[in-house]
């Protein structure tokens, strides 16, 4: 599949001299859902803002549907819908007028039927005549989504769409995303909840300190996240892994007094029982047993020190 969004060596240094993006490379395929996962301040919003034209890139290039975001900004931006992280709405305007305005701003002819459909889908139809200041936080966020959808974007950016949103609405939002995907819309969402990425993404990109550390199929990443380490501490001190245990992919701790076994908690069989039997059969004596879950942090640390994946 062709990349609908292609980011090449994108750098952004803010006026104060702070470098928020340190050479981002990323290709996003048409129709996929990519979750950008990263802690606060990682540069997620900066990345989205730069693609959408809200901040200017310092260097590098971005094409959207083959159109350069600077040279051919009209064609590029026409394809994009943006749901910003902050709830930025004109408080005194009605829901209907706000959404209609967005469609017009993108140069699309008036289409009340479409706007009605969007408002109904987002459960905003009853509120269409309300002023935005009268709406709850969750409703306002849905208005932002309605505005972004009003001009039929091919790519939708959702910047932390479910931050501070209750569970019910989060589920609704995920449904909307799934439906958009069925319509072939490419979706890029940022989040710092791993569960969110897990629930809806096809691929997950991990970003910290302005750098994309990895982009992986979700399944693969989840497998890594699902990995646990078993440390079997021994009374004996070994110089190498005993032969029968090698087939398990066991490694020896540096001091030679423990065996380390990595296994997948999602797998049907973890292989722990068999391993422990082999340890006993090899005539080794257990001193203690410990397990450790590999967390997102572990993956971050692993990626930064460059010895993972």
């Amino acid at each position, binding site marked *: 599949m062709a990349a609908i969004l292609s980011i090449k060596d994108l750098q952004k240094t803010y006026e104060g001299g702070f470098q928020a993006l340190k050479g981002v490379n990323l290709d996003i395929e048409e129709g996929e859902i990519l979750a950008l996962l990263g802690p606060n301040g990682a540069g997620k919003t900066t990345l989205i803002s730069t693609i959408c034209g809200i901040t*200017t890139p310092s260097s590098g290039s971005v094409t959207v549907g083959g159109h350069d975001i600077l040279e051919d900004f009209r064609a590029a*931006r026409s394809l994009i819908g943006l749901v910003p992280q902050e709830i930025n709405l004109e408080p005194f305007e009605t829901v209907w007028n706000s959404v209609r305005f967005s469609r017009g701003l993108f140069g699309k002819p008036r289409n009340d039927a479409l706007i009605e459909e969007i408002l109904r889908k987002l459960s905003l139809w009853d509120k269409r005549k309300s002023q935005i200041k009268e709406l709850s936080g969750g409703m306002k966020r849905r208005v932002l989504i309605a505005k972004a959808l009003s001009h039929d974007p091919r790519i939708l950016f959702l910047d932390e769409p479910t931050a501070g949103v209750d569970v019910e609405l989060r589920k609704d939002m995920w449904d909307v995303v799934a439906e958009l995907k069925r319509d072939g819309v490419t979706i890029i969402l940022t989040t710092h909840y791993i569960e969110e990425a897990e629930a809806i993404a096809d691929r997950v990109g991990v970003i910290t300190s302005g750098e994309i550390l990895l982009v992986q199929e979700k399944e693969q990443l989840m497998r890594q996240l699902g990995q646990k380490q078993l440390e079997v501490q021994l009374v004996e001190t070994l110089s190498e892994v005993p032969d029968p245990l090698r087939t398990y992919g066991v490694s020896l701790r540096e001091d030679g007094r423990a065996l380390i076994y990595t296994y997948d908690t999602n797998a049907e069989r973890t292989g722990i029982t068999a391993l422990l039997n082999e340890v006993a059969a090899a005539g080794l004596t257990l001193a203690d047993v410990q397990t450790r879950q590999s967390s997102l942090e572990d993956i971050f640390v692993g990626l930064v020190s460059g010895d993972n994946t």
Partner: protein
Amino acid sequence: MNWTAIAAIYRFEMARFFRTLMQSFLSPVLSTSLYFVVFGAAIGSRIDQVEGVAYGAFIVPGLIMLSVMTQAISNASFGIYFPKFIGTIYELLSAPVNFLEIVLGYVGAAATKALFIGVVILITASLFVDLTIAHPFAMMLFLVLTCVSFALLGFIIGVWAKNFEQLQLVPLLIVTPLVFLGGSFYSISMLPTIWQKITLFNPVVYLISGFRWSFFGTSDVPVGFSLLAIGGFTLLCLGAIWWIFKTGWRIRA
């Protein structure tokens, strides 16, 4: 040109105006009436005539200009400052529109509001004094050009302003004095010679003079100068706005 986008911005901005229509309408009517009571009746009864025109009528063009200029500036500056303040500017910046389209939408709406108020004042004034307009087309031309050029200036102020104080500052400290000293309520021929010279550095003098000429056929400075001044001012503002969008100054991080 993305005309649909221009229309969308224009309509959205005008909606704000219509939400407060009564206020937009009543306040110029009220303040104009007050001016006539104070200037027309109290002072006018002593001054009688200026350049062969009854004082009450003489101040009408200046009154209209005063309101139109301040309204154009405040509407346009607020119009673009408000989205910056509440964050909705993200949508403008990420839309497939260029600077000219954004300016046409915002400045067009601000100029329309100012024009509306100018016309309301003109009608109110005509209830108080006898008014004949010597050159109606020129009058409309001056009025529209003033609305547009001061809305452009207001747009720049709105982009420049970092807070509400700054938003008020330029109109208050610069524009209002220039307008009052620009011959709104007197002919500059009434000033001492030295002040007549200094006054010519005030751009507003040319606008009011030209506008007054369109009413009464007499002017402080040649009408051609007035047109040149307002044309030059408009171009200057457009240039500044072009630069703002090119560099993203105070709009794009």
